[in-house]
């Protein structure tokens, strides 16, 4: 039987209460939805002395649109299934929504929060890839104040993020983008229940000029979320050069043959997904 080890449980309803409480414990676990965190407890791979339920913090349960800054802030406590009805209709949000609607199944999306999906650092998580592609920032709070980190720089290695003890992910923020095409593709294998590759891309094309194009990848093949810089390309007829660059990117990644497949297979999957994404965002 799987049962969590013993711990204290506290529910926090105010952000300042969180900062006051979190320092009193040596190994706190912060949960909003549960799901993966509860599973890790049941597997006893984490043994926190306290579980802090932040789902009641209303400040983190908001979606804010700042029209002046053209910016969206999604609070950590927002559930994945809620995004559909609250996100604005710009292209960046569209890509984020595409990612959010493919997380797990309906029940997991009802339980899982935006914060959880961003904080875990599992290479199979969806939101980080889309957020990295649109250039979103993680908004991190602590007693000392607030800092922002680009989502693409949040992940150190699988299950390891740049968040420190005493810090809390308040949410993510990004600039709204208009008139972009988006693409979100992933390759799932039932055995070992994993994504070999996940690719998110977004581009603005006018005639034959590429005004802006961004891409991020993740999945077990690559281990963590990585942003790929494609700013040098400005014409859609450079598609072969773009693909060459992606080819080079994939071939230069260090990968190994492991339970998730051979290097040859992983590269094939990544490139297939990337080329598909490029075709989708650049097609007329």
């Amino acid at each position, binding site marked *: *039987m*799987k*049962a969590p*080890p*013993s711990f204290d449980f506290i529910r926090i309803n105010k952000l300042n209460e969180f900062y006051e409480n979190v320092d009193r414990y040596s190994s706190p676990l912060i949960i909003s939805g549960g799901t993966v965190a509860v599973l890790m407890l049941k*597997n006893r791979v984490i043994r926190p002395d306290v579980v802090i339920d932040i789902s009641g913090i209303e400040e983190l349960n908001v979606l804010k649109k700042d029209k002046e800054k053209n910016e969206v802030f999604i609070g950590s406590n927002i559930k994945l299934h809620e995004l559909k009805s609250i996100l604005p209709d710009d292209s960046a949000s569209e890509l984020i929504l595409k990612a959010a609607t493919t997380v797990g199944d309906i029940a997991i999306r009802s339980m899982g929060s935006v914060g959880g999906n961003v904080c875990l650092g599992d290479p199979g998580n969806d939101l980080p890839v889309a957020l990295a592609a649109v250039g979103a920032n993680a908004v991190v709070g602590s007693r000392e104040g607030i800092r922002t980190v680009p989502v693409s720089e949040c992940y150190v290695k699988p299950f390891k993020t740049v968040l420190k003890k005493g810090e809390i992910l308040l949410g993510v923020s990004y600039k709204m983008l208009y008139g972009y095409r988006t693409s979100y*593709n992933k*390759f799932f*294998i*039932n*055995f*070992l*229940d*994993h994504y070999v590759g996940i690719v998110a891309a977004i581009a603005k094309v006018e005639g034959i000029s590429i005004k802006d194009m961004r891409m991020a990848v993740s999945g077990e093949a690559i281990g963590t979320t990585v942003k790929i810089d494609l700013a040098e390309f400005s014409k859609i007829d450079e598609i072969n050069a773009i693909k060459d660059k992606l080819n080079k990117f994939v071939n230069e990644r260090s990968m190994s043959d492991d*339970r998730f*497949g*051979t290097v*040859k*297979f992983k*590269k*094939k*999957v990544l490139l*297939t*997904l990337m080329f*598909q994404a490029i075709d989708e965002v650049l097609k007329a």
Partner: protein
Amino acid sequence: MSERTEKFFMGKGSFVDDIQLPNMLYLEIVRSKKAHAKILEVKGGLTAKDIPLTLTSTGESYRMGRNYEVEPVFAKGKVLYYGQPVAAVYDKDKYKARDLVESVEIAYQELKPVLSIEESLSSSPIHENRKDNIVARFEIGKRFSPESEVKVSDELYMERVLPNPLETRGIVAYYNSGKLNVWISTQSVYSIKNGLSKILGLDPAEVNVFQADTGGAFGSKSAVYPEYVIACYLSMKTKQPVKWIESREEHISSTRPGRGAKAELQLYGNKKGKIEGIEGKIYVDVGAYADDLSSTSPSWIGYQITGPYLIENVYIEGYSVYTNKSPLGPYRGAGRPEAAFFIERMIDKFADQIGMDPVELRLKNLPERPFQSPTGLKVLPSKSFFEEGIKSINYSELKKRNVGVSFGILLPAVFGGESAKIKIDEGVVKVWLGGNAHWQRHELFVKRILKEILEVPEEKVVLMNGDTTELQKGIGTWGSRSAITAGNALYKAAMLLKEKAEKMNINSVEQLLNSDLSAEYYENMQLDPTMISFLLTAAVAEMRDGIKPVIEEVWAYYDVGEPLSEEAVYGQITGGLLMGVQEVLSEALIYDSKGKPLPETMAATGIAYSINAPKYHVKIKTFGRSNTPHGAKGVGEAGTVGAPPAAARAVEKLLNKRVNKLPLDFDLLA
């Protein structure tokens, strides 16, 4: 309406974990974290010192008299597979019992694990008392000297697969007033009763076994396992009820998986497509310990290697071998899918080699008259069945797509026969079958048979869970046997009851329902060629997202004899087909280089979800009745026999690369 289903919706089911008794203790097993190691010391918990017992072969595998290594209840001296029980702990609180697992300390000295059939053949024995890792060797058929124009060679492998019923295994044992009472999720209360009484040295009259509602089994709930013995022992010691419920993690590491079979085959024939002979070797990886079923598995696969075909020359050497993996058990099909996969994949290769349509080649090799294979298998002619089937699935159109077709047979495990009891109790007709349901729709055929013979309305008939106190003798539910064997016993029990009623001048159903008549019947049975069903399966593969092969559609044109209920048969067929397809694409139990299972969750074992289901086209046919009063044939394992070779061929066509290993090696996509 199905009153059984309604009960589950009302939360009134009685699965084993739902059973709550006063003063109950929760048992947890401490398992080996090594695949092969010497145990230097165990601190804490119940161990082999407390329960120095060894399992016996029971259930589906009950054929005695072989020389092999049987699993001890607790590891003694050495652990031979990851997940082997080493110690046990218990508490009246189930979370505390889980905590206690961590209090047991085990010191190991690691040994190199033997993890494949190849390693098994070349490594020193994992059981020190044996000279090698071979459990048993078999010769099937007769040696022959091939003089054929065409020789087709290949090596084929089917990976281990877990049964993974939605409900894991579990037991509640309560030793009370000199009786050991056991409630269990099982395919056979008799297998459990016989096994427990033998292992614990109890008089069978002291052991009562009651079947709890059983949430699927697929082979995993026929045998006696170490945990059952430990739970009973603990209850006998404490005089308190003891509950053990398997976690999914334990199911993955320690419940017996199926398959794990390899074949090195040569098929001989002429350029016109006539198959002239088949020879080669079949190996089965039985894991760390054996039982009758696993040790004889290569011979059972070899026995049916000729499928529905006329193949005059057959010579197969079979080997069952030990490895440092969990012991092998039956998984839906148990040897039948292996045989079908091996012969059908060879036939496709033969067709490719001589440039002939694989369906045409298959039709050409069906016997015109009853045929006895050199292996001893007797099959009836089936050409008209398969020809009709090929038309029915519109093969001439399907051929334009990436289609795979398999021809197969389904041998029901009728050996041992079966029993049934009917008891009229306060206006309700209660039925017990020796092969207890779990829940393949036995109730549908039960109602139908009783309606036919006793004319009692269906809503008055209740199929009871297995119960050794009501029906003393019985066999079990496995091997596509129930419709034939339990159906036969029930049919004859109903006839007996009818006779009794006539003698007592009971002339109306109303009078019958007011009586307290009962009847019981048991009959042994032997496999008869009329009981073998024929299976035509086709599958179409397509590429999704430019890289991922999927099985889009599946056709099943299956002979089930006289179907006892089409509704019942339909769900059995689609269920089996999906399992078969998934075995090709992703479902498997694979181990890391140290012998630890790679999957950690149920999803990770690669099982199919709704989104993986292909479109099914099922046709249920009657190609002759079986030699039983009700004419039924088997069906439970039809899909797992037919689907793998058809789906493997479809993927092979799609990728234009040979598929000889399951699950699909994803490197083929690179």
